[in-house]
């Protein structure tokens, strides 16, 4: 194994959301529920993997949803068994069991100088990390409901890629890729937020249980990318007019229930197990940097699947696509490069 080229102690962060995939879609659509025990197992696999690649220290977000408590129990058992783990340090913060925990943890990890943050969650959790910390590369592990953004991949492989980058075996140019996001502004920046996959305008006007699943309430969708294989509201765009994750520009889709203004009816998987008909009025490309005004007078903006920002008559809502907005670890490319460059070969005598 080549020696790490960087001499300072490389550390990474892990933000594992205990309540991703716990919303109302479990009841209305049989969506999956990844159990805490499984989330802890994912974290344990990440830990042993990065330890084997020489990452000595991992910072973790504390939570009151069961991950920390169970992980600590497991780590004590692993210690008794003399298994190799990095030093795991929980951030010194009081969990509130809200998204604020993710915001704060991301800021603290950035301040602590972690090389990368491994995120366990769905689109919503990833959005929260990026909102607070858009210059530390993140590596996503899908444990949420609507997972258009994080890819489905065994956590060991993601952790190997993160370990290669964090220990300096791969350069940023080799390991990282830039992503698009949507910037949402209400009243010229009075309120701001972002979305990584979709910003959806709904006629619902309160936050409530957060998830969106009633198609009759949908007014418009703004998408960074639109994958025909995606699940969730971005699938509407994906099945209408695919736009790649790495392509320039995004997609805006305007919806209508009214047969007079509706151009077509589209069938799309708007949530796991929920294939619904949606009335489409029209759609248009979203060039980067161009603000799109929201036409609806009063409603709510859902960001990556969750109702977040309520607005009323008189509020001016603008949505703008930004390119090269934040880096992620490109796991596939990392592993290909590692193979090509023999980074995992322990001896050259057999080549």
């Amino acid at each position, binding site marked *: 194994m080549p020696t790490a080229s960087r001499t300072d102690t490389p550390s990474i962060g892990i933000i594992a959301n205990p309540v991703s995939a716990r919303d109302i879609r479990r009841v209305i659509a049989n969506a999956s529920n990844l159990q805490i025990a499984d989330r802890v197992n994912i974290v344990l696999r990440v830990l042993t993997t990065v330890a084997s690649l020489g990452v000595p220290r991992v910072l973790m977000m504390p939570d*009151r949803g*069961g991950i920390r408590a169970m992980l600590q129990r497991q780590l004590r058992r692993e210690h008794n068994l003399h298994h190799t783990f990095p030093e795991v340090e929980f951030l010194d913060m009081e969990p509130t069991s809200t998204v604020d925990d993710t915001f704060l943890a991301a800021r603290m990890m950035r301040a602590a100088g972690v090389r990368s943050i491994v995120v366990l969650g769905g689109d919503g959790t990833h959005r929260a990390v990026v909102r607070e910390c858009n210059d530390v590369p993140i590596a996503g592990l899908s444990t949420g409901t609507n997972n258009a953004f994080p890819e489905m991949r065994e956590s060991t492989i993601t952790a190997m890629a993160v370990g290669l980058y964090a220990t300096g075996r791969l350069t940023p140019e080799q390991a990282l890729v830039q992503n698009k996001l949507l910037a949402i502004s209400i009243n010229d920046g009075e309120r701001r937020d972002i979305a990584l996959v979709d910003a959806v305008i709904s006629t619902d006007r309160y936050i409530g249980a957060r998830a969106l699943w009633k198609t009759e309430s949908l007014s418009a969708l703004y998408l960074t990318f639109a994958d025909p294989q995606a699940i969730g509201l971005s699938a509407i765009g994906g099945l209408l007019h695919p736009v790649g994750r790495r392509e320039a520009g995004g997609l805006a889709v305007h919806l209508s229930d009214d047969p007079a203004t509706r151009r077509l009816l589209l069938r799309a998987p708007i949530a796991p197990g929920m294939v619904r008909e949606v009335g489409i009025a029209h759609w248009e490309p979203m060039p980067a940097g161009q603000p799109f005004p929201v036409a609806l007078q009063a409603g709510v903006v859902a960001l990556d699947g969750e109702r977040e920002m309520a607005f009323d008559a008189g509020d001016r809502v603008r949505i703008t696509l930004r390119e090269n907005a934040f880096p992620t670890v490109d796991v596939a490319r990392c592993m290909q490069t590692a193979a090509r460059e023999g980074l995992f070969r322990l001896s050259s005598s057999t080549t």
Partner: protein
Amino acid sequence: MAGTNPFPLSRDELLKCYRTMGTIREFEDRLHIDFGRGDIPGFVHLYAGEEASATGIMSHLGDGDRIASTHRGHGHCISKGVDVVAMMKEIYGRKGGACNGKGGSMHIADVSKGMMGANGILGAGAPLACGAALAAKYRKKGEVAISFVGDGASNQGTFLESLNLAAVWNLPVLFVVENNGYAESTSRDYGTAVDSYVDRAAGFGLPGITVDGTDFFAVYEAAGEMIKRAREGGGPALLECKMVRFHGHFEGDAQTYRGAGELDSIRADQDCMKKFRAQVTAAGVITADEFKAIDREVLGVIENAVKEAKAAPLPTLADLTTDVYVTY
């Protein structure tokens, strides 16, 4: 911006829910004071801080829907429609109390309102709620039962057995885990091996969801979907409400186990009534003055209840041996 109501409840319903939450808060805060003065006999467990859960859930229920409550049952009683004066008399151990002074704080019930009783035995309500749901299933009127349990009592075998029985019999029952972080004084991290209550439901093949129990609208919407599903034959489910407890496990609890500043911070940032007012006034549906008027009205209601309770007669020897059996 005023005039349009973004919420799934009418203005009147919102006012009613706020009045219910306010009644619970004032009821509990008043008991806290009066207990401290030595006016209240026995054990009292207060629900203040958790009002959004009871109110958000009970808004979907009628008298034919049954609930099985916990030792921390005052909020469930009030939101299920039990008379506040009768409750106060009961807690003071008076004749004319909800249970004629024979039950006290931990056993307030009103079967005519579908309130099957607060319960001094943790976890004991879950099988009873299954029974209420079974009765509802035979009656075929679309009634449901709700089983309330705390995060601590969700470790009781009765609760876990009930999840299984409800799943096996497809009972119209909703299990609500009111997770306030403490099993008495013991933190849930210590006492619960996997402290996700949704995972317990998953272990029995039931859907479960977690909501912010300090957000009335989150509870209301989630509970509404789950109760509707149960009424239509969709079977049992579990709702975890993450919430905070403003008072101790019982009155007299010095709460030294809490972290420094914890109580101040939860009262400042996680007060479900503050959150409700903020959301509803921001939408322009109800004004701050209107809320204040309800606060004043509720204050009067509780003041009157205490006055009536203190004036009510004490039970006598003749009451000691009645009501053990229907016939004997």
